[in-house]
């Protein structure tokens, strides 16, 4: 079955630490890839997306993600996290030509001030 895996369920970091959250998917075809963030008490919002082109994608608030096709991965990174990055992060995938989004289970990030 098609799936999206986020292996880190809970991550705790100190401010200024570097962040990498893993995301792997199981589709064999061409995909569109997304990272969403949900801050406490707020809507889910799009952090960044990959449709095609440069596999290194830059998003809002200093986040970036790299699409590695051979590894079926789309990991999220930030060089230096801030307390305000405390949130839940969801990876999502759509298969080209479809519009159903498959979400991962989410990673809860807590940044200690």
């Amino acid at each position: 079955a098609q799936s999206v895996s986020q292996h880190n369920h809970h991550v705790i970091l100190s401010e200024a630490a570097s962040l990498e959250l893993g995301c792997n998917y199981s589709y064999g075809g061409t995909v569109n890839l997304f990272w969403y963030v949900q801050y406490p008490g707020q809507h889910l919002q799009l952090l960044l997306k990959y449709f095609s082109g440069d596999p290194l994608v830059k998003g809002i608030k200093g986040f970036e993600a790299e699409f590695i096709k051979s590894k079926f991965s789309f990991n999220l990174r930030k060089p230096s996290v801030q307390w305000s990055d405390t949130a839940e992060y969801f990876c999502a995938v759509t298969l080209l030509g479809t519009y159903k989004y498959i979400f991962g289970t989410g990673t809860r990030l807590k940044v200690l001030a």
Partner: protein
Amino acid sequence: EADIYQTPRYLVIGTGKKITLECSQTMGHDKMYWYQQDPGMELHLIHYSYGVNSTEKGDLSSESTVSRIRTEHFPLTLESARPSHTSQYLCASSDNKAGQYFGPGTRLTVT
């Protein structure tokens, strides 16, 4: 301002009642979605629509129904609420370019 709206934001209702959760978007998106999300858990797709008069069931079995009579409106109805329906319901819309936009959610409690 273009946005996506959900009402009510919070609802507590007794078992057996019929309820409709409203979702409207002003972005002109063709595609709309309903997800169910329990606290700290993943999103489960329960219904989606690719346009007016088009609705499909998602991956999570649900006793709810939806309709899409107008592009901007995608209500979800539970004919007979049960405690197992207690959850957060998220509405989203999308175009082909920018990913999904989510509403604030409706937190439903069935007693």
